[in-house]
């Protein structure tokens, strides 16, 4: 199947600065694709390239097989939901939503019918006559979504659509957004700095850093098998041990970590040689922590002292200082309401993990 959206070696320069630096990417039809990155990583520029607000410095961008170069924003089969919502302040909700349909020269009766239907979909029917400033943030967000969706675009672009909402509302809206995407089948491209949002909504995520993709994959691929330090560090929390490849076997490899004077085992990765500098990464929730020495075979056991302890209700997070001074973050789920004395600051603890939970990173 031909990809629906194709970035082919795309760059965008502002003066000397490369906001987007030779990026290639295929997005399939009907995907919920997210571009995730910190501020200034080029994710919004990429979205504005899709919408037609920025011209390419080099490369090609195709939507549905059609080269978009030279096609201005108002003739592209995409619609965008703006971070600020960009609702027209001098028009009421119904007129805001009808605006795009009017530009297409639809019959007034047809416009009315479609506006009514979309207002129903986003549950804003009773606010049709209100001006944007009379609406709450969440309501404005729905109107902005309706206005972009009503034109039935081939692609819907969402620029940090939920950033302005409070946490509870954001979570509800995320479910709704996923729901609407499934109902309409429109290809969604979302730009966000919120990794949870990207993980929850997306079929695939591109993690972006300094104008380039550091990794593209499904949420679980990106979380469980990060390919480089940036992705590993950006998504969730992770403990990194710097070292060198000490031994290579068929399925497993050993990394010597001088700082803690230990050799740690992890699944083997291709294209490394003995002695290469690598980094062993392990997520906090994959580490066991206990006050008694654990009964485990083959796994390295480290000891340390708890220096910080955070209680989040559903989970507890510990920072453990190893004898070398390195810090390791460990999190445990509070699965049972514990009556036993919990691990506290200044406790001497043992930590260990399954070898297969660790990931070795080259870059």
């Amino acid at each position, binding site marked *: 199947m031909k990809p629906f959206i194709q970035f082919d070696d795309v760059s965008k320069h502002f003066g000397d600065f490369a906001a987007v630096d030779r990026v290639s990417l295929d997005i399939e039809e009907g995907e919920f694709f997210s571009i995730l990155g910190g501020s200034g990583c080029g994710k919004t520029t990429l979205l504005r390239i899709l919408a037609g607000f920025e011209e390419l410095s080099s490369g090609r961008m195709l939507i549905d097989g059609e080269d978009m170069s030279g096609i201005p924003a108002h003739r592209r089969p995409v619609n965008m939901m703006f971070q*600020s919502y960009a609702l027209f302040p001098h028009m009421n909700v119904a007129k805001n939503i009808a605006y795009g349909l009017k*530009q297409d020269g639809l019959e007034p009766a047809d416009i009315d019918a479609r506006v009514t239907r979309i207002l129903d979909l986003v549950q804003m029917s009773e606010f049709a006559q209100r001006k944007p400033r009379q609406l709450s943030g969440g309501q404005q967000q729905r109107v902005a979504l309706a206005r972009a969706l009503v034109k039935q675009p081939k692609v819907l672009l969402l620029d940090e659509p939920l950033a302005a909402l409070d946490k509870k509302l954001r979570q509800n809206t995320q479910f709704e957004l996923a729901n609407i995407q499934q109902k309409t089948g429109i290809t969604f491209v979302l730009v966000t700095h919120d990794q949870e949002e990207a993980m929850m909504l997306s079929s695939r995520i591109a993690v972006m850093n300094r104008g380039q993709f550091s990794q593209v994959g499904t949420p679980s691929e990106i979380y469980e098998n990060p390919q480089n330090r940036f992705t590993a560090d950006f998504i969730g929390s992770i403990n990194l041990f710097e070292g060198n490849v000490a031994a290579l076997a068929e399925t497993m490899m050993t990394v010597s970590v001088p700082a803690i004077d230990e050799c740690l085992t992890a699944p083997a990765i291709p294209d490394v040689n003995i002695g290469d500098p690598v980094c062993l990464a392990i997520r906090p929730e994959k580490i066991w922590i206990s006050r008694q020495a654990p009964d485990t075979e083959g796994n390295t056991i480290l000891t340390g002292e708890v220096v910080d302890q955070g209680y989040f209700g559903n989970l507890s997070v510990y920072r453990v200082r190893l004898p070398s001074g390195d810090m390791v973050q460990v999190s445990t789920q509070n699965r049972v309401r514990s009556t036993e004395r919990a691990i506290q600051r200044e406790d001497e603890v043992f930590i260990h993990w399954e070898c297969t939970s660790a990931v070795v990173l080259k870059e």
Partner: protein
Amino acid sequence: MNKTPGYKGLLAVNLSARAVNRGLLWSPYLWLLLFFLAPFAIVIKISLSEIVLASPPYQPMFNWAEDATQWFNGTLENYLFVLRDRLYLYTFWNSIQTAAISTVLVLLLGYPMAYAIARAPADKQGLLLMLVIIPFWTSFLLRIYALTGLLNTHGVINNALLGLQLIDQPLQLMYTDFAIYIGIVYSYLPFMILPLYATLERLDLSLVDAASDLGAGPLRSFVDITLPLSLPGIIAGCMLVFIPAMGEFVIPSLLGGAESPMIGRVLYDEFFLNRDWPVSSAIAVVLLALLLLPIALLRHYQAKEAEQ
């Protein structure tokens, strides 16, 4: 035990602070009373009196003398005279027309300039605004005199056109309506550009992006989004041009012809040449009444805007 140092003293300080505050609050009203309302009351009083050959050249309104037949002298005669005389009416009408046409011309010229400044790179905007304001550093009167040097029969424009052999006789540019329009447009352009720039610069560009994203071409999005959202600036600019242009005296007297008199000039002639203070006061009051109309409309529009 320490006694709290006199709460009466504190109270006094507090009271005087409040008095100062209140005084400050009232100071604009005081200003208005002293320098607008009181002179205006005097103008109204003169406009209601009869002309006499004396100094000052009008009859006192109140006569407290023992032998006076009546103690109050007031008449609407001056107003009736002004409103019945076709010359005055024509002058009023001509002033409104000239001010209105000039305002439209200034708007048509100023809007693109304000738009261009508002969309220029942020570091260039200050310089461009400066360029708009710099002519103010020279006296208004001097700048209007300088225009005569351009517009004269042997002025720069005619000489250039003659030199290029585009015309074989000098054009009559001075003492025409055209010269008045040139003068007003030139002098009042900054008053249009500054408020327009202020609204256009604040305009959220993502709204224009949104319109274009929804399928509106550049012209459509200008008409649907930019223009209505810059309306407050357009109205403010038009007020700032129309109101002073209506009563303009220097430009029509230096550049204009006799066949299209403007009210400012007639006022001057009545006052200084005819020494008819009562009639010229009546003209001033009528002019003010005419100008209150657009201001009232503006207030009405703003109130409606605030309601929404």
